């Protein structure tokens, strides 16, 4: 029966506007959206550049990018922790256990997802696309922007996938954020903590919010898939 009671409690907290709960949700959203905003321009530029240029080591770059897709988030957290800790090279920046550290970590995690999606989209685009833009007078930057605009749905799908990955990751956030209440406690780290404390209601409430985000992402991806179909 405790499961039913906990679920009932969870929905009461969600409906009742529990301040602690909604602060955790806010921290999660803020960190993940800022991480995406930080990673997206660099990742799209990298994916586009690799897709549209022939250079020594290109194959290695593609394999490395694909390998990073499955890089454990806790290892990203470990590396970032070592860099940001007091005795690390970036220690003087005093970023460890702050939202900024979490944003950097999640941006690192999102980067390969966004870059790989962009790379696949641009590499798979019709070669006549770039030629058409150039022949109509576009310079290198404008033809790149036109190409990205033409494959925009695939790039947006990459951004949504990146959001899905960072909003639910726990390893990196726990290590570089420290799970500090009201500051760096986000949904995944809070679920881990509340469950270990036996407060299942809070865990279920936060899990419900996380599943809602996942549902929104899946729904948006479905809409995009529909848009991408030839008219």
């Amino acid at each position, binding site marked *: 029966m405790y499961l039913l009671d906990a679920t009932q409690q969870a929905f009461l907290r969600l409906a009742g506007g529990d301040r602690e709960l909604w602060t955790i949700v806010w921290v999660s959203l803020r960190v993940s959206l800022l991480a995406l905003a930080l990673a997206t321009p660099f990742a799209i530029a990298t994916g586009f550049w690799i897709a549209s240029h022939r250079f020594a080591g290109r194959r290695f770059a593609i394999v490395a990018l694909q390998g990073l897709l499955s890089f454990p988030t806790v290892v990203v957290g470990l590396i970032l922790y070592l860099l940001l800790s007091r005795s690390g090279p970036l220690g003087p920046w005093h970023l460890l256990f702050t939202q900024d550290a979490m944003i950097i970590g999640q941006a690192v995690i999102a980067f390969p997802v966004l870059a790989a999606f962009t790379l696949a989209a641009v590499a798979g685009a*019709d070669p*006549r*696309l770039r*030629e*058409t*833009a*150039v*022949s*109509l*007078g*576009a*310079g290198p930057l*404008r033809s790149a922007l*036109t190409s990205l*605009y*033409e494959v925009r749905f695939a790039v947006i799908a990459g951004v949504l996938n990146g959001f899905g990955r960072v909003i639910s990751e726990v390893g990196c956030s726990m290590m570089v954020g420290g799970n500090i209440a009201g500051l760096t406690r986000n949904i995944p780290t809070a679920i881990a903590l509340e469950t270990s404390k036996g407060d299942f209601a809070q865990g279920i409430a936060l899990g419900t919010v996380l599943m809602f985000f996942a549902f929104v992402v899946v729904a948006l991806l479905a809409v995009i898939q529909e848009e991408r179909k*030839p*008219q």
Partner: protein
Amino acid sequence: MSPIVSISRAVKSYGGRGLLDVGALELGRGDLIVLSGDNGSGKTTFLKIVAGLEHADVLHMRCNGFEADRRRYPRELRRQIVYVHQHPYLFNTSIAANIHYGLKLRDVDERERERRVRDAIGWAGVEHLQSVLPAKLSGGEKQRVALARAKVLEPRVLLVDEPTASLDAQARAQVIELLQRTATGDNCVVVACHDKELLELPGAKRWHLDRGRIDA
């Protein structure tokens, strides 16, 4: 009268196999040049080299005071020479936005742009297709939109690759008429094709590409 384009040499090879080796060609004002040749003879390669879309091993070309070689293809030339694919790529937006594209790049003022796009849509006879997305257009309709998109830029040289391939009789007739109307006055049109009707167009110059050489 000086020609619009003079090509003193253009050489291209793939994997050690010579594909193209042409020289002493001129595109004059008002010329409609029909370039024939077998499949794989290098017609598309030749057009793309002239349009600056493909690198040549050797290139000496002059157009309107600007010189292009194998390393350098001046931006001003891109503004004067436009290439249209055999199966044109239309951007995934409206027909009007497709035609606006090159004009925006040339910083044409908005009112003037609107007027020229409206004229081009009328010229190509695609007024009734304005609400249709490019993916839904037939081959002939896409070809007409692509020609309008190129013509609106008033290029000195229009290079068109197999424009009537796989079109039905009515669409072919429409495209051929548009090409004839384009080659006038200060510009010229080069059409690569196999189409007998185009090859026998009155007033057109015939070039034949064989084993990498052009018989002008």
